[in-house]
């Protein structure tokens, strides 16, 4: 069943890579977007169990309805200044495609904004900042009324190795 569906999903994914709905959230006064299909769930902040010997951006794990999910602080990951969590702080649980399986990871953001329908021609490719910079984790830039929203390729935000490491910790 899954095998039959996979080409269709693939197609949907292909078409919705650019043209489609995005969940937008704010981080350090900037708006970011993640493809809505990559989002599993949005939850409010809850107690995080910290895990020793993990990178600094890995905050720990939560128990989501019987599932243990690793939590990554996106501020820490992006090298931003960390702030204390507020009542607006949310965890977005995303599905990340690994080599062999999809992994659920929660990312901590400042606030969740809305679900936006963005047209394909409103999205522009990532500008080249230079050969040295790795811009693979950015899918594109969405031009909206409020300004530019950075669309993240969440699969690439965390490298495979990191994911493996996190999994190893689990």
């Amino acid at each position, binding site marked *: 069943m899954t095998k039959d569906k996979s080409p269709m999903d693939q197609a*949907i994914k292909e078409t919705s890579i650019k043209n489609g*709905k995005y*969940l937008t959230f704010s981080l350090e006064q900037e708006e970011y977007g993640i493809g*809505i*299909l990559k*989002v*599993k*769930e*949005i*939850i*409010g902040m809850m107690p995080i169990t910290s895990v020793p010997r993990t990178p600094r951006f890995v905050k720990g794990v939560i128990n989501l309805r019987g599932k243990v999910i690793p939590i990554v602080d996106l501020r820490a990951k992006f090298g931003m200044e960390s702030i204390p969590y507020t*009542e*607006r702080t*949310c965890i977005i649980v995303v599905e990340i495609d690994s080599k062999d399986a999809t992994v659920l990871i929660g990312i901590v953001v400042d606030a*969740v904004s*809305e*679900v936006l329908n963005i047209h394909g021609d409103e999205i522009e490719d990532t500008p080249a900042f230079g050969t040295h910079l790795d811009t693979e984790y950015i899918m594109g830039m969405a031009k909206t009324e409020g300004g530019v929203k950075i669309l993240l390729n969440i699969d690439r935000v965390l490298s495979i190795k990191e994911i493996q490491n996190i999994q190893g910790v689990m």
Partner: protein
Amino acid sequence: MKNLSLGIKISGGFGLLILMAIALGGMAVWKMNTVKTQSVMLADEYVPEVEMAMELRGAVNRLMYEMRGYGYTEDDAFYQKAQEEMAAVEKALDAGRLLDEKAVNLEKLKGNLDQATQGIHDYKALMEKTVDTSVEMAKNRETLYKSAAEYMTNSNALLAHENELFETNLAERQHKIAQVSQLVDIGTNVRVMNYKAQANNQPDMINAAADKLDSAFTVLDNLRSISSDQGDIRRIDATASAARNYQDAMKAFAPEFRKGMLGDHDILARLKAQMDKNVAVYTNNCNEYLKGQQEKLSRDMMDRHHKITLVNDVIDLGNDARIGAFKAQALRSPAVMKTAMEHFFKVNDKLDALKAVTHSSENLKKIEAVRQAGNTYKTAMSDFLTNWIRREEIGHQRVKASEMTIAACNTTADTGMSATNDVADGAVASLGNASTVMTIGLIAALIVGCLIAFFITRGITVPVNRIIAGLNEGANQVASASSQVSSSSQSMAEGASQQAASIEETSSSMEEMSSMTKKNSENASHADHLMKEANQVVKTANDSMDDLNTSMSEISKASEETSKIIKTIDEIAFQTNLLALNAAVEAARAGEAGAGFAVVADEVRNLAMRAAEAAKNTATLIEDTVKKVNQGAELVSTTNEAFSQVAQSSGKVGEIVTEISEASNEQANGIEQVNLAISEMDKVVQQNAANAEESASASEEMSAQAEQLKEYVGDLVLLVKGSGSQNESISGRTHIKSIASSPTSMYATKKKTLGQASSREVRPDQVIPLDDDDFTDF
């Protein structure tokens, strides 16, 4: 003094003055007599003594002058004058002796005269000696001149002779040299001609040359005649023989040479050699002779020069000695002459040297003559010098002798002068003394007279005046005092009645005051009541303010609760939003099937957003309300404080009003007491008025008695001072009357009289002036 009677006082004063005058006069007469005696002594003895001494000294000085002149010039005119002066000196001495016999006081004069006489005697002897020495010196000088002349004549003759010899020798030598030079010329010419002839082959010319040589023989003969030296003569002979040989050889050579080539060469050569040899001998001799002559010439010249120098030295020395002698006489210094003489001793050395180089007997004789003259000169000079020194010594002795005389004269004159000075000083001193004593005595007498007069006058007038002044003053004081008493008792009566009137006025106003005070008290209690009411009102206001405060805090609490509810609503909205988003995610995952669900989710989200917005607004409103409530609470507490202050102040006002009420009551009591005192005062014042009237009448009586006393005093003044000072006492009396009749100007006049009284104590003559009239009356 005070106990003595007036007559004794006056006669005692005059007696004292007369005694002083007698003492002064006696002293002056005594002093004058002393001065007169001294002056007579001065005129008769001391002045003639000084005069004599001065004359003697003058004569001796002139004598010394003349003698000194004689000593320098040896002129007899001076000596004559000196003898005249000597006569004058002796005359002065005689006068001195005469004075000595006559005088009484001149003790030293005799001794001094003897000393002067001794000096003059010595001087006379020395004068004769001086004349003798001068004559001898004149002789010496004659000798000096003569020998000097001889010395000079001989020396000059010697010099002239030497010069003459020098010239002769020079001429001779020159002549000889000229001859020899001629000889050489001849020889040279002959040789030249000879050689020329040989060269030109002219044998005749050789003969001519041989003939020319003849002239050389005459020259040689001349030379021989004037030469005296043996060497020279031999040389001349050798030259002559050489010349003859040369001539012979030439004469022999000529014929042989004429033969020319045919001539015998040997003979020619021999003759040529002979010619050459002779020529050489001739030339050599000539040259030697010439040389010898030149040497001799220079030697002779040197000798002559030496001699002439010596002779000149001799002359110079002679001249030096003479100059020295003259210079010494001109300068009057024997030392210069001595030096010149020592210098002259060198002449003998010079003459010896001259003798050694002189050969001619004539000159030697002359040198001896010069030596002799020099010796004579020297002897004469030493004699002259000895005499001169002796005369100088005599001169010194003479000066000493004359100085002795002069010293005696000076002593005499000094003694006379000092005695004169002493006498004059004594006279001046005694006259000065007399004058000073007289002046002082006169001044003292004047002062004593004035003092006596003053004291006697004073002794009489002062006590009388004092008595009158005392009486007058007493009467005045009594009069003024009585008038004062009268006026003051009158004014006292007036014052008493005035006091009574004013006391009545005071009493009525006190009653008014009493009623006012009562009213005050009532008003104060009313105000107290009102204040209490106000206090009540303030308390009520305070209570309601407290109520307001509590309700405000309740409002505040309610608002807080409301805001909590709002927060909950906000949270719910947030959760709803999350749910809506999750729903949207799910719808998206569902794809086409979830499209409708997506719309619903969106709407739900919108609702949630709106709820959140509303909650936010409400929260803002509630916050505002809370803020305002807090402000109200603050205002209430401020108002509360103000009310409590008002309450306090009203309490204080109440207290004060109570105090005022109490004070008013006390005042009313006090006023009643004052009223009582015033009525008592009224009584006393009335009694005072009665007393004052009584004293006024008593004083009037006193005043009349004082006036009578003053009249008695005026009579006494008239008695003492006479009618001249009557006006004074009368004016005094009218003055006092005016005081008594005008009590209004009492204070001014009282001051005046007091001032007079005080000044009277210091200067009594102001009240009773002591002018000239008073004195004349006295």
